């Protein structure tokens, strides 16, 4: 490794370090919630490493407890992860000169916080030769912290009695993730419509109500943004 690469790696790692305050408790919650939902410790560690996507993991756990069909859980994980598709489109031109293993590695370690750092620092067309090392440095800090925190949660979670209903932490964590997404009126309407349909259609077979709720929510969001294309504003209410 050349000096410039090491320095870019370190710069990325340092830039991501303040985000540890957020990711450590988040990883611990995911660890505790996975075990509370009935996964064995080995399964929970495997999920943490293979999936490495906290909100998708937490979103699937209430469905796993309710014995929803596999494809509904996959579809839910996909929808919750759709934001990564946007990140992937933004990052692709930055990484297209790299080898395939590099591109696979950078895809696997991608998280919200490092994407935000990277997109803020490197504009489209930026020709910095070491920018992938910067991305890797930040991502490795987050990945390592996430895995350690998640393992702590997994092993601590196994010691906590069932009566504490720790599986409820998954739902609470989803609420905390949901609130910052509600940036404008259209998203708020999409979320409220989805919540209402999810209640009304809760008894539909195969958890189809969940997918119907998402579809209606997206349709309502699109309709609101068409009909009332006001400027985006911060919206705090959620339910």
């Amino acid at each position, binding site marked *: 490794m050349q000096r410039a690469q090491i320095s870019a790696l370190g710069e990325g790692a340092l830039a991501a370090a303040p985000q540890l305050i957020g990711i450590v408790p988040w990883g611990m919650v995911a660890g505790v919630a996975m075990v509370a939902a009935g996964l064995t410790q080995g399964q929970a560690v495997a999920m943490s490493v293979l999936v490495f996507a906290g909100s998708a993991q937490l979103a699937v756990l209430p*469905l796993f407890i309710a014995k929803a069909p596999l494809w509904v859980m996959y579809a839910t994980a996909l*929808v919750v992860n759709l934001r990564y598709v946007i990140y992937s489109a933004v990052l692709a031109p930055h990484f297209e000169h790299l080898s395939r293993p590099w591109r696979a590695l950078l895809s696997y370690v991608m998280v919200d916080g490092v994407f935000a750092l990277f997109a803020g620092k490197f504009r489209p067309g930026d020709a910095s030769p070491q920018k992938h090392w910067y991305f890797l440095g930040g991502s490795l800090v987050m990945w390592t912290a996430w895995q350690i925190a998640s393992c702590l949660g997994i092993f601590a979670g196994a010691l906590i009695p069932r009566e504490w209903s720790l599986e409820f932490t998954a739902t*609470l964590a989803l609420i*905390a993730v949901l609130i910052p997404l509600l940036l404008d009126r259209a998203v708020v309407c999409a979320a409220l419509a989805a919540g209402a349909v999810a209640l009304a259609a*809760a008894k539909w077979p195969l958890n189809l109500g969940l997918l119907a709720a998402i579809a209606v929510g997206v349709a309502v*969001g699109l309709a609101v943004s068409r009909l009332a294309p006001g400027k985006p504003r911060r919206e705090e209410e959620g339910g």
Partner: protein
Amino acid sequence: MSETWLAWTLIVGMGLVAFLTRAVFILPGSHLKLPATAERVLRYAPAAALMAIVVPDLAMPQGALSISIGNPKLVAGLVAFGLAAATRSILLTIVGGMLVLTLIR
């Protein structure tokens, strides 16, 4: 399918889903641009999905609709919404919500 197999199939499948959503544009190395409508759909869908998971979990704790102060999960969840909006802290939201749930019970 046994519990064990179901869990492992879920984990491996979710691993694929998580990787593919991240790699979809990066791995082919394409210059594809997302249409504006697609970008909006991608913005609304996660919020809709999270709300659609959270709301029944709060309002139908035993599988039956229960919108009253007598439903501890609903009260704890509403407090958590308030805490999340006010503090933007995942930790405070979870600790506060669990505290309310435990106290009511």
